[in-house]
């Protein structure tokens, strides 16, 4: 193993924390510094995560010992295939969101506090992903959650505050369940290190207490991931935040705090059992169906996107729950794709709101001639999320459906295919109501004020354009990630970590020795 590569690992937490600290100190006085520093930090994190993927493929699993204490006693930070995959997804979306916020956040007064909270949230998410220690995972989870509660309330209007309070109450209950689970696991295994815990649990076998704690974790992390019985906060919280934050929350936050943690703990620490598989499959299918049905009845663009997030998260959980290597590959690929196209759609909804001043789809129409770039990129993202063939979303859904058939769950495969059709239906309605068709009467009425409004609609400023075009390009070429040359280090490496199950423990402990 290369001696110094593992020193890269703590950077993923240190860089955003340092950025947040400096911005909060000087950002109020020196205005340009928050934009520059925020973008620099996220850009360097993207570069570091690309580098970390190559490092993992070259040297295998990397472990950083915090304070040089040997891990079962000290705290470990672990960088393996799955971690590298999640880091790249999170930081890529975060970078494009900060580029977008340079222009978009001009309309809010306190840009520096936005960047401070944004970087804190990013530090929390990166921390959750690289932590190899149960309690550290909880601490980072709370850092990311508290920052996101504040960001949802950023506008401090009636709806924002109400949504933030609701989100906070549900999120805190979720964290409490996770903490209870960690407490019980500590008393049962006398360790907090994930690898060590996995070995001790493997010796003890699946007992009632480990099953009970898995249920606590599914409920706790499920609250963060907005799986269907626990989803009530998401459709309020995600639309209330400013557009780049909605993109971060829907794009990556629910995946790192919810899906990644469920997958990592259930597969690599506890080991799956028949009952847990059934629970995950049921929750996945429920989220998929209920999310899609609720999305169909929405007129508020951002609420529709939020419900669609619930539905797409259902696909990922379904794929992970299948437990076959193919299902995991499909689920992780869909996770990546969903974070790209859902953040693109949320950013575009921000651009539309920026131009038209409303989120009600009945008040729009015909925006395609005025905003060709926004229209085009939204069309690409909608096609991709609905699973139209050449785009990335098609491949990931196809793999999940194939994996379900292969694993013998024909019923779930049928529901997945059906929900895909529903997704196409409601995204067609989004396209028809906003970008195609004739301008609604509210926009095109011929009294003077309304015409002035129609004339004033124009494309968003340059940084917003750069960010959405980049995301659209990733949507188009995303399917190429499945080519063997590219997928080996990225998707396959991540899926292999999950498929290896409890072998994770011995790989981690070996690399420490």
């Amino acid at each position, binding site marked *: 193993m290369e001696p110094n590569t593992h020193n890269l690992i703590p950077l993923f937490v240190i860089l955003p924390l340092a950025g947040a600290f400096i911005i909060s100190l000087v950002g109020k006085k020196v205005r340009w510094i928050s934009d520059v520093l925020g973008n620099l930090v996220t850009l360097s994190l993207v570069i570091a995560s690309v580098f970390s993927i190559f490092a993992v493929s070259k040297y295998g699993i990397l472990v950083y010992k915090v304070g040089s204490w040997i891990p079962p006693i000290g705290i470990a930070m672990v960088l393996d295939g799955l971690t590298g995959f999640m880091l790249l997804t999170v930081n890529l979306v975060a970078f494009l969101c900060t580029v977008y916020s340079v222009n978009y956040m001009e309309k809010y007064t306190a840009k520096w506090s936005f960047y401070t909270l944004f970087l804190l949230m990013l530090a929390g998410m990166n921390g959750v992903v690289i932590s190899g220690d149960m309690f550290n995972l909880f*601490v980072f989870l*709370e850092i990311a959650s508290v920052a996101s509660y504040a960001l949802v309330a950023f506008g401090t209007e*009636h709806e924002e*505050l*109400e949504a933030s*309070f609701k989100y906070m109450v549900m999120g*805190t*209950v979720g964290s409490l369940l996770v903490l*209870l689970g960690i*407490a019980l696991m500590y008393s049962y295994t006398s360790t907090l290190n994930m690898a060590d815990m996995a070995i001790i649990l493997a010796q003890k076998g699946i007992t009632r207490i480990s099953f009970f704690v898995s249920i606590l974790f599914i409920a706790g992390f499920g609250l963060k991931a907005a799986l269907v019985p626990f989803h009530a906060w998401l459709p309020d919280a995600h639309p209330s935040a400013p557009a780049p934050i909605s993109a971060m929350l829907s794009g990556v936050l629910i995946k790192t705090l919810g899906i990644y943690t469920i997958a990592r703990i259930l597969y690599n620490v506890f080991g799956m059992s028949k009952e847990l598989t059934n629970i995950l499959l049921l929750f996945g299918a429920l989220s998929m169906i209920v999310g899609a049905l609720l999305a169909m009845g929405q007129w508020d663009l951002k609420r529709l996107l939020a419900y669609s997030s619930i539905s797409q998260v259902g696909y990922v959980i379904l794929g992970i729950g299948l437990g076959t290597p193919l299902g995991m590959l499909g689920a992780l690929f869909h996770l990546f794709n969903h974070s790209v196209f859902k953040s693109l759609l949320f950013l575009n909804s921000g651009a539309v709101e920026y131009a038209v001043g409303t989120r009600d789809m009945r008040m729009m129409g015909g925006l395609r001639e005025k905003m060709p770039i926004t229209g085009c990129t939204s069309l690409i993202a909608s096609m991709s999320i609905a699973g139209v063939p050449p785009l990335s979303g098609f491949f990931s859904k196809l793999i999940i459906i194939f994996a379900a058939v292969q694993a013998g769950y024909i019923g779930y495969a049928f529901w997945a295919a059906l929900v895909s059709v529903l997704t196409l239906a409601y995204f067609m309605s989004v396209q028809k109501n906003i970008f195609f068709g004739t301008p609604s009467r509210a926009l095109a009425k011929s009294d003077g004020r309304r015409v002035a409004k129609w004339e004033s609609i124009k494309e968003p400023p340059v940084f917003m354009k750069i960010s959405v075009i980049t995301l659209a390009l990733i949507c188009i070429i995303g399917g190429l990630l499945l080519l063997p040359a590219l997928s080996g280090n990225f998707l396959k490496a991540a899926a292999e970590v999950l498929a290896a199950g409890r072998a994770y423990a011995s790989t981690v402990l070996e690399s420490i020795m």
Partner: protein
Amino acid sequence: MTVYFMCLILFAVGIYCILRKRNLIKIIIGIMIAEYAIHLLFALLGYRTDGRAPIFSPDEGIVNMVDPLPQALVLTAIVIGLAVTAMLVAIAIRIYEKYGTFDITKIKKLHG
């Protein structure tokens, strides 16, 4: 065994308070009660009967000490809980400024 059951009862009181109360401040109090129940349980898990404080000194061996790790973890969890509570109270005050009430049945601009 009794103490664990009392923790459970405390937790149930907190959850009941979150689910049934209509006042924002009472909901926040419910969250804090539930949180303290879990902190208490966590600290109790490291306790052993007639154990002494986990302070190492040369004239005493490491026998019959309570487990110090849960105490450290609970301290961290309390600090996190403080941040969350401060955030909750701050938002509740802003809600009161906007709506003029703490009653959740009157605060419903959203319909989720």
